[in-house]
């Protein structure tokens, strides 16, 4: 899967699943600081990623995700790896 495709889908998920305004989202956005995603929201996002990309993201890997771009990295590595 192309990275750009994952990025597009990631942004759609943030808008649809977490109710974040599309214009606020950049690849460098930090989930907690910039997008105001709290700890429950992070779990929701992980579940949405697992469902939509058919991947499994263990908690220890999820802990390293703080930006949108890092979430794309993890998904890309799993989908393409």
């Amino acid at each position, binding site marked *: 899967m192309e990275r750009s495709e994952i990025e597009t889908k990631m942004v759609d998920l943030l808008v649809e699943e977490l*109710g974040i305004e599309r214009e606020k989202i950049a690849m460098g956005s930090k989930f907690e600081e910039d997008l105001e995603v709290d700890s429950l929201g992070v779990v929701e996002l992980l579940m949405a990623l697992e469902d939509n990309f058919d991947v499994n993201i263990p908690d220890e890997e999820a802990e390293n995700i703080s930006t949108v771009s890092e979430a794309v990295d993890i998904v890309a590595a799993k989908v393409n790896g």
Partner: protein
Amino acid sequence: MARRRVVITGLGTVNPLGQSVAETWKNAREGVSGVGRITHFDPTEFRAQIAAEVAGFDPEEYIPRKEVRRLDRNAQFFWAAASQALKDAGLSYDEDDPAALRAGVACGSGIGGIITFQDEVGVLRDRGPGRVSPLAITKIISNMAGGLASIEFNLFGPNICTVTACAASANAIGDAAEIIRRDDADVMLSGGAEAGIVELSVASFASARALSTRNDDPAAASRPFDADRDGFVMGEGGAVLILEERQHALDRGATIYGEVLGYGMSADGYHITMPRPGGAGAARAMQHSLRDAGLGPGDIDYINAHGTSTPANDSTESSAVKAAFGDLAYKIPVSSTKSMTGHLLGGAGALEAMLCVLAIRDGVIPPTINYETPDPECDLDYVPNEAREASVGNVMTNSFGFGGHNVALVFGPPS
């Protein structure tokens, strides 16, 4: 020291008759039914296929989109009603406002987020524990509507939740008044909400033979005190009353709708769903509320009945009114607005309290619609079918919950 007095300075509601106080009151005065075929799910296989739904409710009119999806529909209703009521009262609090420490919340709900409950049990069963939402519990628990109100509106005083089935929001109003009386707060956002028109609830109430199955004539299904009544009709929505210490309200020049005069409670101690025959429990709640108000049976100009349209409630409640008021019972108009709104369960007490306050303000008693055939066991003046203009001073509203919880509230005009 004289008891602190509690007045009502703001109202808000979302219910089957309207999504504002004005729209609701107009429809209640005109005797409009809010009941129709269920649209929230396909009711084809259900015994009861009708309900009073809030049509076209858009939570984003009140709640940021990001928050909406974190709230069950019942909390969305409460939020909407709360935001209307605070605006009506002219009250708002910044996070560092010392007055916010003296403003609290009392919310009632019969069961909380049962839509979420049903959905997430489905997820657990079909997809396993790893897919259950981290928000499932926070959306289900009944107190969250009140918790969210404190977070959103900066209400840092007492914050409680009453869960006494169909008496829940009447208890919330009564408890809120007590909190102000005992000087724990100056302002209380009080009321409740329910959003229970979901397969699990409708199926269970229907299995319990509690619901009307007049599926072919929904608007006529909720017919309290009528001889042909066959059960209640589920409703949904919520209502909020802003209660305020009287001097506090006067000092800021607030519009005062009326005063909370009395709060009475009792338990039937009899059965999980059936009222105690003869209505002794309900009668005691009414008597306690009169005593608390310092009033006698002759001082009440209108009773908003619990009046569910179940065979057992309406005859028992009629007996209870007679037990509490004696011969005066025949002279007091008693109406059930559930004939129009359906039964909002945990939201019912607050909605009916609101209608009582408006009856006082405008001198209009809302009717019991669908009243056609008298029942010998229900022989009071039920204000049949048409609203009635009358001088309305003090009013009582009854709320009774499964489990035998009986609550009566008494309201009076501003003075």
